[in-house]
């Protein structure tokens, strides 16, 4: 099921945090950081896979893989990990549609799995993702990459790679827009 498009609301009420160009530069920088921290281009490199959390983590993971291939010449397998069935808030709203889960080629056993999501907020999605991942295999290690960290954590979780730290009020909404879903790239505050 296609996620709700985010480009359509009143632009007067939103503040741009990242432009399309900023998103591209941020993704490139995160790719460099992943290469450096995991040393995935070294001779004794660990097997790294990227797993995007739907909906917008999935295309972000693919974009990171493209950049990593460009900068380091290494093809990193990507997959998607739907965490809906592991959420702790399913009984607090209407039925949530599921999204696709697709393991990267070769699975996740003994791999360094980098989870990729658009916004890190309470940390509950990542908690669910760690539980989901455990049912799919036993990674060697798990890291987290997010385009935006907006604070207000409710669990002891932090990201290894952060595109941009954004101080926010709890009532504000941070929306990552991606061309794959929203016809344009950007990050806005509403």
């Amino acid at each position, binding site marked *: 099921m296609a996620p709700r498009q985010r480009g359509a609301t009143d632009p007067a009420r939103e503040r741009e945090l990242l432009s399309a160009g900023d998103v591209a530069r941020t993704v490139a920088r995160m790719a460099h950081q992943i290469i450096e921290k995991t040393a995935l281009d070294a001779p004794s490199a660990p097997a790294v896979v990227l797993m995007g959390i739907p909906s917008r983590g999935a295309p972000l993971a693919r974009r990171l893989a493209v950049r990593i291939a460009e900068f380091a010449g290494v093809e990193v397998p990507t997959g998607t990990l739907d965490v809906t069935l592991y959420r702790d808030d399913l*009984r607090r*709203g209407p*039925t949530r*549609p599921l999204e696709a889960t697709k393991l990267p080629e070769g699975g996740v056993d003994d791999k360094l799995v980098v989870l990729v999501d658009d916004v890190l907020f309470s940390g509950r999605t990542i908690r669910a993702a760690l*539980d989901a991942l455990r*049912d*799919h295999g036993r990674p060697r290690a798990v890291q987290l990459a997010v385009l935006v960290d907006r604070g207000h954590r409710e669990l002891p979780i932090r990201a290894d790679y952060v595109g941009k730290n954004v101080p926010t009020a709890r009532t504000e909404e941070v929306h990552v827009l991606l061309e794959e879903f929203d016809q344009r790239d950007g990050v806005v505050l509403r």
Partner: protein
Amino acid sequence: MKHLLTTEGIDPAQATAILDTAANLKQSLEGREVRKLPTLRGRTVITMFYENSTRTRVSFEIAGKWMSADVVNVSSSGSSVSKGESLRDTALTLAAAGADCVIVRHPASGAAHRLAGWLREAGTSVVNAGDGMHEHPTQALLDAATLRERLGDLRDRRIAIVGDVLHSRVARSNVHLLTALGADVTLVAPPTLLPTGVESWPVTVSHELDAELPSQDAVMLLRVQAERMHGGFFPSAREYSIAYGLSENRLKLLPEHAVVLHPGPMLRGMEIASAVADSPRAAITDQVRNGVHVRMAVLYHLLAHEEETP
């Protein structure tokens, strides 16, 4: 969604949502080490089967367990039903004992509807797992899931339902669901095995199987339900098989891509030839496999959301 009692008048968007959930569940569970999801932890699902069943009861039980619900099975023999307790009292007892969902199969048409009425106050969800000659909605959903896997979107697909339509709750549920999804359904049966009022159903009716086969995308064969037949509906089993059984020769009349379905239990040599049932064109084991995912999806849509305020 609070109950699943019928596919009659089902919202196509709701049906598609359930089928999409089932497909995602299937994909997510494929090749996994741990085939268990924590989604329905702490919820209690009770199956009440007043009729014999292997595949449906087992399928619901596995579905509930793979979603981490606590599943309790009640059958009419070996329970208070054999002491003469009414369906209503049994249901109220199970609800009071903590059932979040009751899955019921009963020989009386309309039993699941009555149950849903009695359990309104308790807030328990009811799933119809087959009521008499009326409906069997999860069977129709798993048939639709299997057809979608093989054929893609069912809009304008031609599907023939062949055999004992009169006694078949599977046929009724499939007619409603498949037509809601946009398929073009043809019922093929001798006049004695068609229900009265079939003219008002949104289907084409035919008595000639050979004439219909070349234009179908799928053929669904129904079991001849001897246990519900009191009297002569057709001259002999052999004659029925000659006119309406899917033999190897008849299989050749179907287009290359066409799918053969049977809800089971099948009577080999009666409505379907053994070689046809075992051919790659038949999706009969896929139906059973998909049955678990579809029932997981139904439980998800019934139990994994906030309480609906009535």
